[in-house]
């Protein structure tokens, strides 16, 4: 159990959620979404850690029974999650660019034509 990693990931998630909920500039909201994603990525990678294990990369001669390595599945999950985070950021920033062109403002309080 590596406590620093888990505490840091929870802090990142809470910080990201705070940014989404309280900041009014829409680029800051997008940054908040990114921070939440990175916090969860840190959580997933930390889950796979085994104390004293090596990296799970072997050529044929090194693969003996009893080899102790860290869990490779969370690493694959994290890679996928990083890709998804990049795509979410790209899509959100494209929307921000077009919103600025149409509404001439980046304040979330003024981007509210649909309400009620």
């Amino acid at each position, binding site marked *: 159990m590596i406590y620093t990693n888990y505490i840091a990931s929870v802090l990142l998630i809470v910080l990201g959620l705070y940014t989404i909920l309280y900041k009014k500039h829409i680029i800051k909201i997008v940054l908040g979404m990114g921070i939440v994603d990175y916090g969860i990525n840190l959580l997933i990678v930390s889950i796979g850690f085994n104390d004293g294990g090596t990296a799970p*990369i072997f050529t*044929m001669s090194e693969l003996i029974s009893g080899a102790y390595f860290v869990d490779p599945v969370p690493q694959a999950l994290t890679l996928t999650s990083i890709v998804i985070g990049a795509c979410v950021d790209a899509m959100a920033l494209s929307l921000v660019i077009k919103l600025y062109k149409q509404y001439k403002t*980046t304040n979330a309080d003024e981007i509210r034509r649909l309400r009620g």
Partner: protein
Amino acid sequence: MKFKNGIQEQDVIVKCAADKFLPFALVFGIYVILFGTVSPGGGFQGGVIVASACLLLYLGYGVRGAADAINAEVLRVNEAIGACIYVILGVAGILCGCNFAANVFYDIGAVGDLISAGTITFMSYAVGYKVLTGVGFLLLLMLGLLAAADDDDETPAGENE
């Protein structure tokens, strides 16, 4: 500071640095894609490194320079071609009698060679090609949007809070 083409007017130093670093970035990115099965890296990582060459062009030459050097239409079509190759490699598993994405090329090369991991090697190359073209197209598109937005209003974006 004078603004032209969306960024600060090009310095000679920045343009020279972009010129010198571009081949290294491209070669390193293609290395990471090709050697994905034997060292850390793989399709997505290498593809993003190669796509950052578009950013180097933008830093050195501005939006006009980057858009003139790379044809965005070709990138868009090739992204879909890379994805199609991935699906065809998966279906090749079904055609050979096993399930989807089964390892049908399992007897190519020994462990530790460049092309040795079976179907996943080629799938990784297809993913690398797709990410390369896709992220490059995305970068060109967003830079083009920003340049068009800056041409409409004279001031740079993002003034409040």
